[in-house]
């Protein structure tokens, strides 16, 4: 026998890729990546949406044909009128599940319409999880900064409400969101006349300390970790704690290989160390960490379980 295989969720693309690259990426995911759910749409900056909006319906169609369940992403920081309208419209459609990444959308939820809570909503404890579950939340991707002890408690709490818990398992971790665009600032521009310079950096723009140490990555209004979260060797421990899903966040490079490595390890077809070696091969330049869950801090070197 085996325990139930973990669900793999592809998180929303965090970066500003061109429409062609966007379309190719989701086509390949639909056809080749062994993921179960795909969250698609803009969560970082609403100014990017017009560039690839037309590609989304076709991408969704193809993902469905590939057997994936499709979830619509929402914006992380909603301040403008048009962003509020877009948030409301997301909930008016009932065809697809919605992932809430800002509590603005809680104004439109109804208990009879299930939805998911994304990693940018502050679910730190069982009381918050319980409240949101009663509002209709069925799936929670937990904030990446949570330590393992919290994940255990929250997974147990979710089970009580028939909800499931997913953790951020791969990719640069979202650390902050701002009203200000740092990509624009680094190029001497302002947010309102940004020239979409964030498109130049498919995995974010590296931020180094004055000592030359790798530290962070900026992505428009968002700040990410330099390190890529990598929980592939912790999959067993997470499953035992009651975690039912792993979130893989899109990056450039061979993402299908990344998804395959996780899928093989989750299904116990290969050993965690083997999976780790596959990831190392797929993204040789990435610096990995599982520090938020198991180490002294989010930037801590990989800790073995």
């Amino acid at each position, binding site marked *: 026998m085996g325990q139930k295989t973990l669900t793999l969720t592809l998180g929303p693309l965090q970066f500003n890729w061109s429409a062609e690259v966007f379309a190719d990426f989701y086509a390949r995911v639909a056809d080749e990546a062994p993921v179960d759910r795909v969250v698609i749409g803009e969560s970082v900056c609403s100014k990017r949406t017009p560039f690839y909006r037309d590609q989304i319906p076709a991408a969704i169609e193809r993902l469905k044909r590939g057997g994936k369940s499709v979830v619509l992403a929402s914006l992380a920081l909603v301040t403008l009128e048009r962003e509020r309208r877009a948030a409301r419209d997301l909930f008016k459609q009932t065809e697809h599940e919605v992932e809430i990444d800002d509590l603005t959308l809680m104004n439109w939820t109804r208990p009879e319409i299930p939805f998911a809570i994304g990693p940018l909503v502050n679910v730190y404890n069982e009381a918050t999880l319980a409240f949101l579950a009663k509002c209709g939340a069925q799936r929670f991707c937990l904030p990446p900064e949570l330590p393992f002890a919290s994940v255990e408690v929250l997974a147990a709490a979710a089970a009580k409400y028939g909800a499931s818990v997913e953790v951020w398992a791969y990719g640069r971790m979202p650390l902050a969101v701002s009203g200000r665009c740092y990509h624009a600032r680094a190029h001497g521009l302002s947010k309102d006349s940004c020239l979409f310079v964030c498109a130049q950096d498919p995995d974010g723009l590296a931020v*180094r300390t004055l000592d030359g140490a790798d530290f*962070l990555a900026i992505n428009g209004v968002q700040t990410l970790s330099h390190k890529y979260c990598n929980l592939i060797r912790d999959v067993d421990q997470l499953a035992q704690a009651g975690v039912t899903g792993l979130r893989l966040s899109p990056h450039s490079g061979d993402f299908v290989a990344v998804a395959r490595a996780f899928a093989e390890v989750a299904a116990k077809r290969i050993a965690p160390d083997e999976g780790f070696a596959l990831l190392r091969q797929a993204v040789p330049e990435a610096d990995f960490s599982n520090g938020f869950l198991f180490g002294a801090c989010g930037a801590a070197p990989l800790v073995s379980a």
Partner: protein
Amino acid sequence: MSGQGKLELVCPAGTPAAFRAAIDAGAHTVYCGFNDETNARNFPGLNFSRAEMTESIKFAHRRGGKTLIAVNTFPRAGDLALWTNAVDDAARLGADAVILADIGLLDYASRRHPSLRLHLSVQAAAANADAIAFYARSFGVKRVVLPRVLTVQEIAAINRAIAVETEVFIFGGLCVMAEGRCSLSSYATGKSPNMNGACSPASHVDYHEEDGELVSRLGGFAIHRVAAGQAAPYPTLCKGCFQAGAYRGHVFEDPVSLDAASLIPQLAEAGVTALKIEGRQRSRAYTEAVVRSFRRALDAQAAGKPIPASELRGLTEGQQTTSGAYRKTWR
């Protein structure tokens, strides 16, 4: 909503002495927290025991002032009692309101203490009318402290659309990121404002003189090199000096403080109820000077007179000030 009435001045206190200094200097309202992880300024040697809180609330009430107790970190999973006790004690000690950020804790407070006034902390980052409506409808929140990502025009639009009071920051340290949604500190140090109540905690800060420069490191990451004679900033990550592509400098924000004194008339016009001064971690000398200055400004505003020029630059980080996101060009 709200109106063009008198603006309420909400002032910080990290110690009972600063609390008294704030009231003496003209604060209408003082906000403070218990000496543990339940509030977002959980610094060594700071904050209030239950006995000190009791005395301080009485002191304020005798002088016609109000006390708000911040319980504005996010309770740790499996460890809710520390936070629910703080809310219970705030209610028992007669706080005029509690400032909360966590949904679970708001839910608890609204059910357990229906007559306790709830304010939504800036840590909840409710940045638009819909988010605010959710908190007002679900928990009966009476006031929202707005995150520092909004322009004055956006604040005015929010006030037109909601039925609760708004409070905005007018002076002091400036979060660059949406508050309560930032893990930069825990990425570098393992301690975060959301979980531990401390951003860039002193325990992880190291100051060093290197080649005539003051170098500050946080969790081992160099975040500043300041030449002799230059103003020094707090060792917070988002005010650090870094290299991003060809850009070398303050990638996120210069080490400046917020001073929106000149915008008081516009903020009043925008319908805000209360103006908040940041700085519970500062000394009572700071509290006294800043509160006195802003009380003078609010009295001038109420009397229809021009706002006196600010004299507080010497107290600010980097000795420079900005009006932050209130002006659109900041973005």
